[in-house]
């Protein structure tokens, strides 16, 4: 059913003559100040690269971008979204780093029927019980990234796990998803804690507790500065010598892994992207990103890149018809740096590969990621999602 639908959309695009042309306006709603500013900048850079790569042949259609700063504050994000829709009259919004901002925007974009292409925020509910036909997520859901690690670890003989994550909605969702799949596969969670979010810099007390828990390994979700602090301290306490570390891939993101030093060696994590994925799309993406920004593209940049590509492809498929554009956003599918991608019609969350990879730190301190396993086409259960 879905396949024929896709085919007809593509066919329609091919057959439509450029008689009709539309000027599309897309709002990029991202944090450009505050703690997540670097993420906002990476996503923007990726988005712009996609427009450069795929937006050359738009025909008579045009695409303009309007950037707005959410300051990572939900009320500010909502105010800016209203401005984009009501004043700038954008056809779609893309971006959104924080789950809190996404939660604040949800009702507004749903009621105004403004497509929102989410390029990071992973809140499970937004493609679950609070899903909307207008919220399309090209990044990930918190559950999606962590679920595959449960059975995988059990299969590798890891039976007992101690978990740690920051105490906020995303941290809890990530750990809950992992714990569920891990115990279902026969593993046991022997303990765990949620650390005060963005207040914990000293993980010593928690690491000491984890080391004394008798677990086979530690599973954590930390990102950014917390990830650096956590992995370094994990090494300093010598726990890397007796207890392996697993987690969501942000723990060993290429953005921070350099600062984590030797302790990151051998850490196994799962994520929807790794720079070491081997396919022509990723090679082109990484090469051009490096040329433009003089650094390797992060998992955030690739989400911006795919969000941009999704929007451009939807424009191409719509032949200047803006109503068709709204519908086509969730029908586009393509193979990108992350591998094959499509939007699940049941939830509007992305269906994508999850990569389980190991971080290697060489003697000279340089780091690389070795992909151990690829879990293909990971799809979320609807979890109470009813479209319309």
């Amino acid at each position, binding site marked *: 059913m879905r396949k024929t639908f896709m085919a007809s959309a593509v066919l329609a695009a091919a057959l439509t003559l450029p008689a009709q042309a539309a000027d599309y306006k897309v709002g990029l709603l991202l944090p450009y100040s505050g*703690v997540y*500013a*670097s993420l906002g*900048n990476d996503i923007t850079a990726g988005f712009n690269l996609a427009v450069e790569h795929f937006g050359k042949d738009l025909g008579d259609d045009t695409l303009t971008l309007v950037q707005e700063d959410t300051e990572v504050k939900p009320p500010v994000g909502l105010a800016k979204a209203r401005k984009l829709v009501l004043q700038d009259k954008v056809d779609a919004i893309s971006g959104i780093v924080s789950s809190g901002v996404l939660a604040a925007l949800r009702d507004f974009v749903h009621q105004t029927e403004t497509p929102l292409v989410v390029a990071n925020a992973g809140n499970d509910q937004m493609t679950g019980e609070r899903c909307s036909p207008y919220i399309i997520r090209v990044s990930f859901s918190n559950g999606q990234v962590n679920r595959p690690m449960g059975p995988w670890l059990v299969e590798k003989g890891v039976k007992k796990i101690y978990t740690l994550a920051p*105490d906020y909605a995303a941290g809890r969702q990530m750990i809950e998803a992992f714990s569920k799949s891990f115990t279902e596969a026969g593993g046991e969670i022997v303990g765990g*804690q*949620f*650390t*005060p979010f*963005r*207040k*914990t*810099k*000293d993980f*010593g*007390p*928690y690491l*000491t*507790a984890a*080391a*004394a*828990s008798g677990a086979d390994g530690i599973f954590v979700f930390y990102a*950014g*500065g917390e990830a*650096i*602090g956590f992995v*370094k*301290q994990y090494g*300093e*306490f*010598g*726990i890397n*010598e007796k207890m392996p570390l697993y987690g969501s891939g942000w723990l060993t993101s290429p*953005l*921070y892994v*350099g*600062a*984590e*030093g030797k302790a990151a060696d051998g850490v196994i994590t799962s994520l929807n992207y790794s720079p070491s994925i081997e396919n022509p799309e990723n090679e082109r993406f990484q090469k051009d990103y490096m040329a433009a920004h003089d650094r390797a593209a992060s998992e955030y940049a690739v989400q911006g890149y795919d969000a941009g590509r999704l929007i451009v492809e939807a424009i191409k498929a719509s032949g200047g018809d803006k109503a068709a554009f709204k519908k086509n956003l969730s029908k586009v599918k393509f193979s990108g740096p992350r591998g094959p991608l499509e939007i699940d019609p049941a939830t509007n969350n992305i269906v994508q590969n999850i990569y389980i990879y190991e971080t290697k730190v060489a003697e000279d301190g340089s780091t690389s990621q070795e992909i151990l396993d690829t879990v293909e086409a990971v799809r979320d259960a609807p979890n109470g999602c009813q479209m319309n």
Partner: protein
Amino acid sequence: MLTDPGYLFVQFLNGLQFSMLLFLLSVGLSVTFGLMNFVNLAHGALYACGAFIGYSIAVWTGSFWAAFLLAPLAVCVIGAVLYGVLIRQVRSAGPLTQVLLTFGLIFIFLDAFRVIWGDLALGVSAPTLLATNIHIFGQTYPLYRLFLIALGLAVYLILWLALERTNIGAMVRASVDNAEMASCLGVNVERLFFAVFCTGCLLAGLAGVAAAPIFSVYPGMDLEILIPTLIVVVIGGLGSLKGAIVGSLLIGMLQTFGQVLIPQLAGSLSYILLGATLILRPEGLFPARAH
């Protein structure tokens, strides 16, 4: 787990190490509070200065020890400049003016860090000599953290000797107790305050660079450390070395064991202690000035 003495000992060390960091930060703040009633919310920003400058020095010279020695001096100079340009003009104004002036400084530093060092967290490596761990009671503990504990204790000892056994120390104590009287006795309180303020900045910078290998360096680290430091100062009582060390130990241990034993309350414990102290002993536990 809780009956394992090795485990409890390591948690005790964790608490001690956090306490020492708080001590390095709070002692300078407390004495400037006590000496001139000066409220400096930018103290956390000076701590972050120490960490950021330390990071850059470590990168340029390739040596943590160079950063460890030079960054606090650089922060001390920044503090001296701030004092000359701004702080001197408001030091006799009310707490509101001082809070706001230093709040303005927080804003300026916040963006200055982002412009100069970017938004990403930066890692600093511990010196090779200390980048190892030792075994105590069957547990592993990072040597660098023991160094931090020793550093805090050493600073406490030096300050104690300086305050109790030297003329300058006597002048400081006299001025904290009664600035007018000290001034009549020929103490140049203004100059003394400047010296104490600079020492406070030096210690804040030292805390920043010393904490960098453990916590990494990132924008916003100033605000995170500011509140626990202020809590220590108020609980301990203004202007006293004893207050600063006791307050630091209380908050450090409370945080550490709270996180492990009652994680649900860990976020609020220090506020509860602060609230209780303010109600029961509004002047703090060991205020330097008798009322």
